[in-house]
């Protein structure tokens, strides 16, 4: 589903990705962990070209993202959820969910609204359709953001630290929505510090540090029997 081939990325002189090779299969739930500044978010952001790699290839759903014609095609199929929600504050929750459907997918307005309302129901926010984002709590905002991404019926969902900006008591409601998505077989790539969630939901955990994937395995392998010294030292600090 997603292939990264020798992906490198530099910001000026600072090389943050130093050759990432990665295959993610359809239906896989992959959690990326690593210290801050390790490049884990950048890895995720190359998967829909929010960060264009300096070199290397990104292929999603058999389409090479280097081709501009593929880019918008792929972005329709790849939903993204951000740490800071990035809801559109000047629109109601409902309009946040219907904008891309009507403008990109050309879904008729009524149908788009039905899809939106069904998704809001699913994330437990059916009563907030007419509300504006600024009137919602952090957890509610993030659930709306997930629903907004799902409204495009994506094949892959990318999550960039989706719970890092939330108050602790709101983390659970967001993780629950993500878990139910995983159970439905959605292909997901998640950058997170929620190790409990990673153990519970991930098929595969990647440990990234210094712009490289240092360890790649099942949650049991990574958390119980890490082989890399840096993985061990990272886990000992946070667990």
């Amino acid at each position: 589903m997603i292939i990264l081939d020798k992906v490198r990325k530099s910001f000026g002189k600072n090389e943050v990705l130093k050759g990432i090779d990665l295959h993610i299969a359809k239906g896989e739930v992959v959690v990326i962990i690593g210290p801050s500044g390790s490049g884990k978010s950048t890895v995720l952001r190359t998967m829909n070209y929010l960060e264009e790699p300096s070199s290397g290839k990104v292929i999603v759903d058999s389409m090479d993202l280097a081709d501009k014609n593929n880019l918008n095609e792929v972005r329709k199929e790849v939903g993204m959820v951000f740490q800071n929600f990035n809801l559109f504050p000047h629109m109601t929750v409902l309009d946040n969910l219907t904008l891309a459907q009507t403008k990109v997918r050309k879904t008729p307005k009524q149908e788009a609204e039905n899809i939106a309302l069904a998704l809001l129901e699913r994330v437990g926010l059916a009563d907030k359709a007419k509300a504006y984002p600024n009137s919602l709590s952090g957890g509610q905002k993030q659930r709306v953001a997930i629903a907004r991404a799902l409204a495009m019926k994506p094949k892959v969902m990318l999550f960039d630290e989706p719970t890092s900006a939330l108050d602790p008591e709101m983390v659970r409601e967001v993780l629950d929505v993500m878990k139910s998505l995983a159970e439905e077989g959605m292909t997901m790539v998640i950058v997170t510090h929620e190790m409990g969630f990673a153990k519970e939901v991930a098929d595969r955990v990647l440990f990234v540090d210094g712009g490289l994937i240092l360890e790649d395995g099942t949650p049991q392998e990574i958390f119980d029997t890490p082989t890399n010294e840096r993985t061990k030292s990272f886990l000992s600090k946070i667990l």
Partner: protein
Amino acid sequence: MDWNVIINNLPLLLQGALVTIEITAMSVGCGFLIGLLVALAGLSRFMVVRLLAKCYVDIIRGTPLLVQIFLIYFALPMITGQRIDPFIAAVTACSINSGAYVSEIFRAGIQSIDKGQMEAGRSLGLSWAQTMRYIIMPQAFRAIIPPLGNEFIAMLKDSSLVSVIGFEELTRRGQLIIAKTYSSFEIWGTVAVIYLIMTVTISQLVGYLERKNSVK
């Protein structure tokens, strides 16, 4: 204080005020469009386009409006051989001038929007232009209502400069009346009050727009 001079000449002054409003509205309107285009050009991928936008803004902001008016009204006809109607010269000079300031207002407004908004739009599959139109601009526009109001007020006052090319707006009308009546104090006083009424009205309107468009 001779109230009769004021009362007798008030209709003439008010006609002048109407012309001032007309020229200001047209200049700010054209300046708005120019400013929007220049601001977008300034954000362009292409260096040449960005450079042109920057040159325009630097040149217009770096020279006095009065000189710009002279250039368009007196200097341009010497090159083209065509006389320019004072009204057209006045509106052209003011529009070009206003466009430079408005473009900076737009630029600041667009840049004040969190870059996560563009990323969210693009990640949903919207094009750059669609994201600009539906997500960035509506928010930027809210942010720039107050500085746009200031620009409108500044333009209204600066439009008095076109009196130098004999264009009969409020200030020029005042000058002409004084030339006949010698009532400097009464007429300039009245002219000032009329300007004040117009600018206060604009700032009230801007305040209303601001409240109406505040983020819910």
